[in-house]
């Protein structure tokens, strides 16, 4: 398969290692990897703030970038969720881009979803000793229905012990611009989430979305209870 990496804006700017590890994993599994470099962003930030015209421009750019891709994989449930859940309504009055968006929806995946359900390769022979707790990001679970796949991947990393996260279903308070626009509420939410992470007893916080992870670990660090956050891809990267 020829797999195109959708690195996401956050991944590109802050966590490029996610893309590097993903590329290495796909290559190891015998696939070709490419990176259409005129990709930029899925547009969820402007979409969630109500700026649909701006979002459409950004979405068109993304759709165009992946037009020739066979499959597209991202290290983020929220970005793929944005495409799947919102691109149809975004382009409901644009038949040309509606068709292109639909094509992209059919060939785009979040990483753990792709590895477990499409490639059917949950075991990468990874080895990493750590006690981790898993935060199920809202968009990955509720928009994309991704629940078991990341746990399956974690199960197959030798040495990983997964401890439950209390009230895991609670939003961490990131919500993209929500953290900036309604900071006091966001802080209260991440405060509770952070406490649950501490209560879990985990040494590492893991998940599918760096946005959530940097929100929670950034809070923990500032408040003197550092619990490093590692994306599942980063755990795999460390373990392979």
């Amino acid at each position, binding site marked *: 398969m020829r797999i195109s990496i959708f690195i996401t804006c956050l991944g590109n700017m802050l966590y490029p290692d996610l893309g590097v590890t993903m590329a290495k994993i796909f290559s190891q599994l015998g696939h070709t990897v490419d990176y259409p470099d005129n990709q930029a962003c899925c547009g969820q930030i402007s979409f969630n703030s109500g700026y649909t015209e701006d979002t459409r421009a*950004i979405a068109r750019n993304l759709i165009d970038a992946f037009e020739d891709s066979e499959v597209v994989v991202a290290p983020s449930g929220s970005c793929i969720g944005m495409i799947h859940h919102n691109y149809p309504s975004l382009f409901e009055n644009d038949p040309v881009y509606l068709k292109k968006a639909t094509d992209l929806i059919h060939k785009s995946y979040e990483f753990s979803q792709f590895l477990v359900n499409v490639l059917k390769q949950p075991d990468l022979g990874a080895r990493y000793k750590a006690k981790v707790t898993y935060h199920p990001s809202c968009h990955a679970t509720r928009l994309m229905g991704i629940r078991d796949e990341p746990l399956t991947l974690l199960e197959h990393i030798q040495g990983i012990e997964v401890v439950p996260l209390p009230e895991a279903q609670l939003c961490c308070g990131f919500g993209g611009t929500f953290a900036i626009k309604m900071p006091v509420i966001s802080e209260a939410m991440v405060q509770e989430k952070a406490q649950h992470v501490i209560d879990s007893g985990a040494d590492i916080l893991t998940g599918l979305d760096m946005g959530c992870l*940097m929100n929670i670990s950034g809070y923990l660090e500032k408040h003197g209870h550092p619990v490093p956050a590692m994306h599942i891809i980063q755990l795999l990267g460390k373990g392979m």
Partner: protein
Amino acid sequence: MSENKPYDMQEALDKALKDDFLRMATRRATDKLRHQKLDAANQLGDWEEWREAGEKIRNQVILNLDYYLKQLIENVEKNGGHVHLAKTPQDAVNAVQEIFQKHNAKTLIKSKSMISEEIHLNPVLEKDGVEVIETDLGEYIVQIAHEPPSHIIVPAMHKNRDQIAKLFEPIAGHSLTSDTPTLTKFARGKMRKKFLNGEIGISGCNFAVADTGTIAMVTNEGNGRMVSTLPKVQITLMGMERIVPSFKELGVMLNLLARSATGQRLSAYTTLYTPPRREGDVDGPEEWHLVILDHNRSEILGDPDFRASLRCIRCGSCFNVCPVYRQIGGHAYGSVYAGPIGIVITPLLEQDYEKWGHLPYFSSICGACAEACPVRIPLHDLIVKHRDRKVLTGQTSAIEHQAFRAYRYYFTHPKVLRHFVHWGARMQFVFMRRGRIVMGPPPLANWLKSRYLTPLPRQTFDDLWPMLERRLKKIELQRGEQK
């Protein structure tokens, strides 16, 4: 929020977030109700099928609301009831006032009605010299405290038992211990005389059955039954969208409502009343009025983007899963209806983004509400739709527009963005301490108030790709040679 002070969002939020008891009480109330609902839904089995049925029924009703409302009115009048169609809250208040004036009534016994909150009925009647008694225990507590309800199912969840005892004591005329049995016994004793002597009863409506003119009332305490059985005159207040076609659909909706609101299979008392009393009946109202409130529900009806919100059966499930409500409780919203449904319908009922435009931002768009809603209202999508409307109608700040214009530019010109990011990576040391970004310009400053930020790495993925690509190609070649 006290009843007359104008709402200040920051103040309301700060007050709520500083109130440790409120936050604990909100968690306790919502955890309990949420778990009870989940248990009840699991016991029922096939919850998704039930939700689908509920959505279908409510959708069909909404799309034919004129037909069903017409049928309801005809049947109520045929039965001998009086229908008052209230376009505005003031119309509804006037209708009620007229009934009181006609009977020269001075005592009102009231069971739970969100419509009565929506039209702000109590203060008007009290000014008219009517003794208004909220008979639902939670509503009674907030009435004495001069506060609005903080949750649509458990209105006084923000009060602790000591506070409740203190509220009751002046009325009791003696001290009260704050254990639940004592407080409940006090309320029971206090209300008895009121029930037995109340001249007019006002109650709410969970569903109105169009083809019989029946009102379904879902309660647990018995006060709803008292209010609809003992007084000579009864008034039911109803939101005009709360209709089901017949008993058949009512059955489906009652299953959904009871389980969603409190996790019960049916509430202690589910009363289906078709007033007025029949010839020879020894109780039940002789005279019955149904006040049907529009209050811009018709506007929502004519707005396909938001029409789905009329499906709401006021179960409170969305409150019980909302991570925002969990932290701030009901009062901080400043609106009659709080929680996810509140932030969707309030700007629509009031047709006012200026006063209520803060509400659509009380959400991180986590989607828990849509997941929980028994009639599958896509609340998270509707919240974003409000934000769309605000932008389209020019109600967001110029700075925000500029920011998103810039965002749009950079994220459709990735090569330009790359330069910007490189520049940022070079300059960020200004904001860093000990390897972390600790300060920055607004709006980043908001984030940094309570969190650290990892610094931008020197190379973006764009930068790393060319070398990565070469390496991968080499590996591929080697693999090919090995075959």
